[in-house]
């Protein structure tokens, strides 16, 4: 169950190797670059707004709605003025459940996204940097984890552990880290052979310093995009596992909302309001994160950016842009 094994990476690998100028600019300057990046790309702006909205709901939302487990009305009522999104099969308020569920689901999503990349980076960079037997062994490890189907493995592990957010997080990390390790290994491998790394080795810098000062800064954009991808994966997989009934079914999260909707045969009674809003929320967060990611993609990859600028330049002069190899130019 690797985090989106397609698409996002192929365009990244060649672009992530920026000059070390980005690293030298310092943290404040770096942050400003990212904010600029988001503002300039329409997709990224859209994504950032969506994510900000959901984070706000997760933080402050529960203060404005009642207790989501309270039985407030007749079961299976369609949306009305009193209950904006109707009631569930037990007579709870769907809106309250959606809002309160946002907090737990996003929390697990973002923390698993971070941990998965951390574990992946630790193993992937170690393998790529040291090479040789270490590489062979670690590569074998993550390749085996990549090829074993994630969901069945997650189910088997989760079934044996006490159900709750910690179990869920653990299971998601176990089944999710391998993809990140694989991508970061090949990126490290590519950087390892660059001249500036060779220079650092000759200068007698320690391995730790080379990894943290020379290699990691050049992978920042890749790592950020992996954290985003990892979060998308974690939210999706978490909802799937909880839908199966492997989470804590008494807690209120997006996954358990869907679990109860399916359990109360919401579909066969036509109660679309019990499952539609939650799924839309999951998809909006996932889509928002992907959009944010694609914005970073273009900003941190000079080639992609130049391509767009060149195209706009040609179109502005009334030329039909033809297909050409993207080249990094200084103008624009």
């Amino acid at each position, binding site marked *: *169950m*690797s985090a*989106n*094994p*397609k*698409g996002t990476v*192929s*365009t990244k690998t060649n672009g992530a190797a920026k000059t070390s100028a980005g690293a030298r600019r310092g943290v404040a300057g770096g942050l400003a670059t990212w904010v600029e990046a988001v503002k300039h790309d329409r997709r990224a702006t859209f994504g950032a707004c969506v994510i900000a909205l959901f984070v706000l709901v997760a933080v402050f939302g529960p203060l404005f709605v009642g207790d989501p487990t309270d039985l407030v009305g007749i079961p299976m009522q369609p949306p009305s003025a009193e209950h904006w999104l109707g009631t569930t099969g037990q007579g709870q308020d769907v809106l309250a459940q959606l809002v309160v569920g946002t907090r737990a689901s996003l929390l697990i999503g973002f923390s698993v996204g971070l941990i998965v990349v951390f574990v992946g980076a630790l193993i992937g960079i170690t393998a790529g940097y040291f090479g040789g037997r270490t590489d062979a062994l670690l590569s*074998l490890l993550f*390749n*085996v984890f*990549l*090829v*074993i*189907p*994630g*969901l*069945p*493995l997650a*189910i*088997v*592990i989760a*079934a*044996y*552990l*006490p159900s709750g957010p910690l179990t869920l997080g653990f299971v998601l990390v176990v089944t999710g880290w391998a993809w990140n390790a694989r991508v970061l290994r090949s990126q490290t491998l590519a950087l390892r052979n660059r001249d500036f790394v060779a220079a650092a080795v000759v200068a007698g810098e320690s391995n730790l310093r080379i990894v943290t000062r020379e290699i990691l800064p050049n992978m920042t954009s890749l790592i950020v995009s992996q954290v985003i991808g990892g979060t*998308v994966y974690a939210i*999706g997989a978490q*909802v*799937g596992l909880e*839908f*199966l*009934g*492997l989470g804590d079914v008494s807690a209120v999260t997006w996954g358990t909302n*869907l679990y109860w*909707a*399916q359990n109360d045969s919401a*579909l*066969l009674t*036509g109660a*679309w309001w019990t*499952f*539609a809003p*939650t*799924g839309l929320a*999951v*998809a*909006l*967060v*996932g*889509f928002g994160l*992907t*959009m944010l990611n694609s914005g970073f993609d273009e900003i941190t990859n000079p080639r992609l950016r130049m391509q767009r600028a060149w*195209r706009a330049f040609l179109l502005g002069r009334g030329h039909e*842009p033809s*297909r*050409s*190899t*993207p080249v990094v130019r200084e103008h624009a």
Partner: protein
Amino acid sequence: MRYILKRLGFYLLAAWVAVTLNFFLPRLMPGDPATALFARFRGMLAPEAMDALRETFGLTEAPLLIQYFTYLGHVFKGDLGISVAYFPAPVLQVIGNGLVWTVFLAGTAVVISFVVGTLLGVTAAWWRFGKVDTFVPPTAALIGAFPYFWLAMVALYVFGFKLGWFPLGHAYGDYVTPGFNFEFIADVARHAVLPVGTVVIATLGGWLLTMRNTMVSVLGRDYVNLARAKGLPPRQVALRYAARNALLPSVTGFGMALGFVLGGSLLTEIVFSYPGQGYLLVQAVRSQDYPLMQGIFLVITLAVLGANFIVDLVSLWLDPRIRESVS
């Protein structure tokens, strides 16, 4: 040949890891696994079922190593123990009943999704910034963000419940007799439209984007320009020259995506009460049928490993570089 053996060795190793995980997981449970398991089932199970459980897990007084080898022996003989939920049916038999449906569902969906997605990717890259390229990838990305099973719920609600175009669940209706006759096959197809359709729609975007991105970079290559300069028909340049070479990353990704797609299709099965592995899995989770759960994990893993091996053989055939590097 050496390449094939190497890959085969890797899959055997992966299979061994899966089998070993399967052995140790119950033993990682807090406390003594035997008592914990039995405490959970006390009063719910006949004594014979308890014995069957003990037998399945090899939870005897013997040292761990002996237990492990006994277990390996059982697995090799295809003995995965007795199911609790379907007592006294052996796990393998329970799984076998559902396996055909899962392979049918996931297989059809993956193939359709791969072919259609790849072709759309070729189209998007060929007419870059055209209509297909502008609208299809974002739409596919949006749809891909939905959980498979949620799309399945919506499809079931709209096309099954509201419009009544398709049946609400199961693999075939009660009124047809299973067999090789037109009526049965047509009925199975009718029942498969919604589950296959949702998985296809959910996974299409991934293939499309991979193919589009590689195709874009391949289209800038010299040999494509040469083919164009020779005056070959565009169709031939697009398919025979560019697409064929751009296909490689997609094929390599195919094996890896398989496990992912399978996970999604298991969840989809649950929504449609489709009698495959996913449906069994949820039964197993609900009734805490550990032998069945583990059996499903093992069988699905082995199936995915086998499929990956086939993908390796295909890429060997597609990519002369692999052949060259080996011989």
